[in-house]
């Protein structure tokens, strides 16, 4: 049973049955169906076992992953195996992705297709991040998901754009296709997706592991931010046709990063790689340097690849440097001018922004109505990258007076304009003034 039909029943490992209600999509190793089981809806991944080298071993690995459980709630993890059919086919149940999440593939395309049920015609619906913070939060969450996975000693092996669902309003991330995840060092036959595979896999001299995951993670992050292929530039486009030999060359032994500072042969081409050309100018050096390192020395020296924790720290910093100017311009601080050491200025409208200094950090956070910091920024042990801890607001009782509202669950200590420290309970706030200092507990901040 290579394919299932609607209404068909599939027997689960422990005897219950799930009923196929629809088809969701297809991948390189099989198809995903919608099924009813136990009074609710699930997704069923059903394998084309001809595309799996050793189905028994593959199934055992999924079983082990089910028993181990997901590293965190960022994974759409396998939940129940089905029985093996007479012809050897099988599958597993996992949670359906929530409606509010879009496929990363659709984000890259900037649209998804909705099928009109009457005409069967496909209609394009835009898919875009609604907020720059949401995009950077997605980068933090993706890095963190792989940090969590690698911390439990496993590797993903097939990291690509098809493996994520993202909420474009919040940046929340769900990692799907978790079936090739295996203990680091084990591989059950998967190679990866062209364009995302580490050069040593393309060249045939290595198999997927934690080190190749790190490479693929850099590709995913590059595509998220710069919306293009890190290795496809002039040198590759000149070949016109990407034959097998060309793929081996440009994504393997002779791979060149499009912004390699020492090799200009593969720069992005105007008219084809406009996104990369445009966005590369907008990012601060520490982000660009991380990608340069990933795709220059990191191409061959696997130990030079950026570890997830580093990405995570960089993106937390990047998010704190976003400025939304009242003139409508939203961008990173590096795209604003410095009025003086402590103040940013909008190059378009001239608006200035004071900054807040946090302990243990080199960068200062720009202040404007709506600017915010997150739980992970005031508590280094927190893994909550989405919870806002403090936000800059206007006092409702005193219009024109700006302050920081405590959105966290902790009570802060802040130096108020009387020069004394006072408690700031959750839901309360403190005005912004020249001598402002806030003690969050493990972290302090001052103007």
């Amino acid at each position, binding site marked *: *049973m290579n394919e299932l039909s609607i209404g068909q029943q599939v027997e689960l490992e422990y005897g219950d049955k799930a009923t196929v209600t629809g088809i969701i*999509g297809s*991948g*390189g190793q099989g198809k995903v169906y919608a099924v009813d089981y136990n009074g609710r809806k699930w997704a069923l991944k059903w394998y084309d076992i*001809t*595309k799996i*080298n050793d189905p028994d071993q593959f199934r055992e690995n999924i079983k082990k992953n089910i028993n181990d459980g997901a590293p965190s709630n960022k994974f759409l993890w396998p939940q129940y195996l089905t029985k093996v059919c*007479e*012809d050897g086919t099988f599958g597993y149940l996992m949670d359906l992705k929530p409606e509010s999440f879009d496929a990363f593939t*659709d984000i*890259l*395309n*900037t*649209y998804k*297709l909705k*099928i009109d049920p009457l005409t069967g015609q*496909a209609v394009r619906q835009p898919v*875009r*991040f609604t907020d*720059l913070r949401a995009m950077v939060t997605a980068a933090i969450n993706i890095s963190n998901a792989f940090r969590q996975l690698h911390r439990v000693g496993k590797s993903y092996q097939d990291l*690509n*754009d*098809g493996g994520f669902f993202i909420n474009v309003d919040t940046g929340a991330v769900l990692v799907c296709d978790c079936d090739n995840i295996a203990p680091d060092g084990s*591989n059950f*036959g*998967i*190679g*990866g*997706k062209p*364009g995302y595979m580490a050069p040593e*896999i393309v*060249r*045939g*001299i290595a*198999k997927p592991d934690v080190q190749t995951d790190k490479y693929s993670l850099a590709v995913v992050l590059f595509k998220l*931010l710069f*919306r293009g292929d890190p290795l*496809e530039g*002039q040198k590759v486009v*000149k*070949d*016109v*046709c*990407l*034959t*097998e*030999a060309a*793929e*081996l060359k440009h994504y*393997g032994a002779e791979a060149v990063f499009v912004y390699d500072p020492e090799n200009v042969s593969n720069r992005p081409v*105007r008219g*084809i790689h*406009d*996104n990369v050309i*445009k*966005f590369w100018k*907008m990012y601060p050096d520490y982000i660009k340097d991380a990608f340069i390192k990933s795709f220059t020395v990191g191409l061959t020296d696997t130990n030079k690849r950026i570890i997830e924790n580093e990405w995570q720290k960089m993106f937390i910093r990047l998010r704190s440097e976003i400025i939304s100017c009242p003139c409508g*311009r*939203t961008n990173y601080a590096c795209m604003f001018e410095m009025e003086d050491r402590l103040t940013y200025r909008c190059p*378009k409208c001239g608006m200035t922004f004071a900054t807040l200094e946090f302990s243990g950090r080199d960068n200062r956070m720009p202040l404007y109505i709506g600017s915010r910091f997150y739980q992970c920024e005031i508590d280094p042990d927190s893994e909550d990258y989405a919870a806002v801890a403090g936000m800059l607001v206007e006092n409702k009782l005193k219009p024109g007076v700006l302050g920081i509202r405590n959105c966290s669950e902790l009570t802060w200590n802040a130096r108020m304009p009387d020069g004394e420290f006072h408690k700031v309970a959750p839901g309360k706030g403190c005005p912004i003034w020249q001598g402002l200092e806030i003690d969050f507990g493990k972290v302090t901040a001052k103007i």
Partner: protein
Amino acid sequence: MNNINDAAEERSVMNDKIQNSSAVDNTDPFDFDDDPLGATGVSRKSLVIFFMIDTSGSMKGTKIGELNTIMEELIPEIRRVGEADTEVKVAVLTFSTDVKWMYPEPIPIEEFEWVRLNASGVTSMGAAFKELSSRMSRNSFLNSPSLSFAPVIFLMTDGYPSDDYEEGLKALSVNSWYKFGLKAALGIGNEANDDMLAEFTGSADTVVHAYSGNQLAQMIKIVAVTASQIGSKSMTLSDQAEAELSDEDVYASKQKMLGQQIQNLVNQNENDNTDFDAGW
């Protein structure tokens, strides 16, 4: 690789021109659209799927009727096959007494609408090969400004060519796009000659045969879906040995992979003789 190389040179000249003209516009660093969310879709590699369909008189009746319906259903099913990496376009070439394109140029698969075909006349397959060869060029159908994958070429026929197909095939065989393309063929009914089809695809593995309407639907789907996915889907490691791959190792590896996958699926379907009430 003459066709491809000439075109490449032309391109790089074009690139130089574009880059020179843009060198002056960098005076004001903020004088450009600087919204970090203002992205257009990622640049996709282009893939054209060519369907070459026999519409000679012998296809008349249920054969062409079934084929029309299968193709109408197939196109929407493979709409998202390119994902974020490949822009898939479809071109349909029919051959009977005359050789005709369904549309004057390849159409993106998301917009493609199947025009039902009629069958009559003789089988000018050789002329069809020549026509295909003339269109598979940077100056014609394969004119995407971005990078392309070699095309997928899927031939469907129920009979023997009535013209000199070998001459046409000779013309086609020097075309680099054909040489590197993924070729598959489907013989319909008893008259179709699998050896001749293997000459076209270059290997017997990528030739399948359908004797009934049900098989026709299965085979078209297997070949079209498998062929259009190779290159854009995650793949299994073909070789267990960890040795550096050379150009020779990877030469025509996609065509070989296509052959293997088609044969696996075909065998699986042939073995699937289970009764409906069995196995529950």
